[in-house]
């Protein structure tokens, strides 16, 4: 266990250096080291590192961490291994709210995280309410999520068509992209994501008990409705804030929790921090690769994630032996 966690941390550090060194203008490790330690404050490398590469790496870290932990939380709260911000429509809800806020608020950016959070929360409550009312099976929740997603995506497209002034590149917003991130844009969502993540860790044991099913959770003295609401709010903050600056990155919220389940088991106390670590590395790794592959053209991180994550996930699904079966 400890070894595996150490490997995840190493991967995280490795991804950071890759993200800072590589790109359309490759930097030498030496110049990066000099910049990071404070020399060469006037060089182009210094400007590039501090205004472009590091903010972008931080954005990728936060995005991966937010979406992966949000996915873990949703899987517990819905008792459904297919739940993730993307599959149950939380990302679309946040995306729709972002577009709506841009449309109504004349492009003010500072309110976007709050709008995205509200959009995410309303959507997740709606999906959970639907599931609860219909006493529905696992498949129904996912079907409801897919339906709500496509409905909200239609809304996103409509807004973009009606208001051509909106300063959003729709394609990269809907697929998720980290280009153009600055520290300024990250301030509010980043703080919110980190805070929500820390609170999430405090709830890990309660989340575990929630995963035993409502009846047993109640027998163990868990206040099920309150904990469920808190967890839904936390997962909405995590996913919504990411969508507000990085767009609707898919996949990371589904596959990272599953990979971590296989590596670390189903204990939320390990699953949450490990998913955060792996999610962060995964998004930054994909973003860096996307900048490299066809430079000077840039593939959005979301595209790379689907390219790499999809086949890898299928491989995991097919390879039954050795790994743990995915929890229902």
């Amino acid at each position, binding site marked *: 266990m400890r070894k595996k966690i150490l490997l995840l941390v190493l991967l995280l550090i490795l991804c950071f250096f890759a993200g800072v060194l590589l790109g359309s203008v490759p930097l030498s490790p030496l110049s990066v080291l000099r910049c990071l330690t404070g020399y060469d404050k006037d060089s182009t490398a210094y400007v590039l590192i501090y205004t472009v590469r590091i903010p972008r790496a931080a954005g990728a870290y936060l995005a991966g961490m937010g979406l992966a932990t949000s996915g873990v939380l949703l899987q517990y709260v819905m008792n459904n291994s297919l739940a993730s911000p993307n599959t149950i429509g939380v990302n679309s809800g946040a995306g729709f709210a972002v577009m709506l806020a841009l449309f109504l608020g004349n492009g003010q950016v500072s309110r976007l995280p709050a709008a995205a959070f509200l959009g995410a929360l309303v959507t997740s409550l709606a999906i959970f309410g639907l599931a609860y009312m219909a006493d529905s099976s696992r498949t129904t929740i996912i079907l409801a999520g897919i339906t709500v997603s496509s409905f909200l995506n239609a809304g996103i497209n409509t807004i973009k068509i009606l208001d051509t002034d909106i300063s959003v590149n729709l394609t990269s917003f809907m697929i998720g992209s980290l280009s153009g991130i600055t520290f300024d844009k990250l301030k509010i969502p980043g703080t919110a994501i980190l805070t929500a993540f820390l609170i999430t860790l405090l709830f890990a044991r309660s989340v575990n008990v929630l995963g*035993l*099913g409502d*009846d*047993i959770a109640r027998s163990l003295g868990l206040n099920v409705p309150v904990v469920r609401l808190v967890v839904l709010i936390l997962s909405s903050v995590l996913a919504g804030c990411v969508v507000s600056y990085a767009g609707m990155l898919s996949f990371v919220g589904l596959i990272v929790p599953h990979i971590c389940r296989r590596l670390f*088991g189903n204990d939320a106390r390990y699953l949450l921090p490990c998913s955060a670590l792996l999610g962060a590395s995964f998004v930054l790794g994909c973003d860096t690769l996307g900048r490299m592959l066809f430079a000077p053209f840039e593939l959005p991180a979301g595209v790379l994630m689907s390219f790499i994550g999809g086949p890898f996930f299928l491989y995991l699904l097919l390879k039954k032996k050795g790994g743990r*079966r995915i929890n229902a």
Partner: protein
Amino acid sequence: MLEFCDVSISCGATPILGDISVCFEKGAVTTVIGPNGCGKTTLLQCLNGSSKVTSGTILLDGTDYLAMPFKERARCISFLPQVRTIIPALPVKTLVEHGRFPHLGFSRKKSEKDIAIVNDVMNFTHVDAYAAQYADTLSGGIRQRAFFAMALAQDCDYIVLDEPATYLDLKGQRELTEMILQLKNQGKTVILVLHDLGQALRISDMLVIMQDRKIAATATPKECLRQHIIEDIFDVRLKEFSDGEGCYYFFY
């Protein structure tokens, strides 16, 4: 003593039981029996909040049980529900450790006492050999014992088991009976829902018989037999055999 005083209970918005009054003696084994759909599970489910009490009170040793916070309730009564909609993919030991949840403070750190209790109950229910195995890979019987161990890890004076014999083979049922009697000897109060009338007659000090969502009778097994209560309510005939070791019941 656990007393239900004029309790009405509903599931969701549907009222199921009305004005039920029944008393479970401390230190005894009491079994709730009755035909399918008579409301046995609903009656007990209100102890963990799965069914809602709409009027009446429940007194636990004289204090208002429903006024207690959820955690406090889970430290007084451990209730093992019947249905397993979710089989967690967790090692048996981790599952049993969840039974300590109501006793953990905010830091959620396990104390030495927690660890000792978990080891004890795993020993008691004979699941220690499966400690590292995942619950979803085990047979129904062992899984049931693991859940039983989890409920015992709550370390409550009152233990309520809804259909604990489901999933158990004959040997498992015999072991369950032995464990229940041992718990009684340790001073625990055990409340059961059982379908096996013979088992209910053998191990209970008191039987609560439900019919058509009402308490039809509360009586000791001896009285039940003498007054032919079971035969009337379940519409069966009963023969009793006894040898040196105990009584056996045959229904036809």
